């Protein structure tokens, strides 16, 4: 470990990196399960319906909201990286971190409203 690591870790860009990596990891873990559930349609609609009734549980809905918010965070974080690497930005665009988080919270809320409505 380099000695200045703790200072680098206090930087908003490091937290943006951390959030991007952890959200990506959690989404990667969820993805095979998501595919397996949808694949249940191969055994007939009743099989898929059985699982969907499980998703009516409040805790599962909370998890769904969490996953949608994670997806939005990974999308906005990734878009910031693409803009830094391929756009004309000459710095780390910390304001885009704030915009990304704000946008993700808004997307999460829109999903929550649709889920509860």
């Amino acid at each position, binding site marked *: 470990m380099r000695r200045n690591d703790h200072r680098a870790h206090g930087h908003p860009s490091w937290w943006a990196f951390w959030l991007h990596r952890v959200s990506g990891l959690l989404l990667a873990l969820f993805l*095979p399960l*998501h*595919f397996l559930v949808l694949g249940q*349609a*191969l055994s007939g609609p009743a099989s*898929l319906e059985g699982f969907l009734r499980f998703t009516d549980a409040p805790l599962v809905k909370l998890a769904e909201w969490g996953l949608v918010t994670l997806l939005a965070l990974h*999308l906005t974080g990734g*878009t910031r990286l693409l803009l830094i690497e391929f756009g004309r930005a000459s710095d780390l665009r910390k304001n885009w971190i704030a915009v990304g988080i704000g946008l993700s919270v808004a997307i999460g809320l829109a*999903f929550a409203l649709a889920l509860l409505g």
Partner: protein
Amino acid sequence: MSGAAPPHAVASDPGVREAVAQAKAWYWQRISAMVLAACVVLHLCIMIWAVRGGLSAAEILGRTQGNVLFAAFYAVFVLACAVHVPIGLAAIAREWWRWSPAAAQWFARAVTATLLVLGLRAVWGVYAPGA
């Protein structure tokens, strides 16, 4: 250039091969990210629209069965995931879990295969009429 090592000697250097592999992974990660950015925006819109009033198998399959556009979109989504996810996981395996580059690469290949099989199976599952 005189004195430079012949190309085959450079290409056989494990350090150079690793650097080339990482540069390619970086590039594929960005290309797939661009495809995924578009897919995820659309997927988020579809989800917010679809969950209103609760989800049912009949409702989902009613939208997807026999719908070629839907299937094509989600097949592209799955392919982009199968490129993007393993590269990210391999980076985490190397940097956070201290796996060797070779182990991380084999792990990435296994993840690609898993996502391709499960993902395309899921797309077929909701597309195939009367499945």
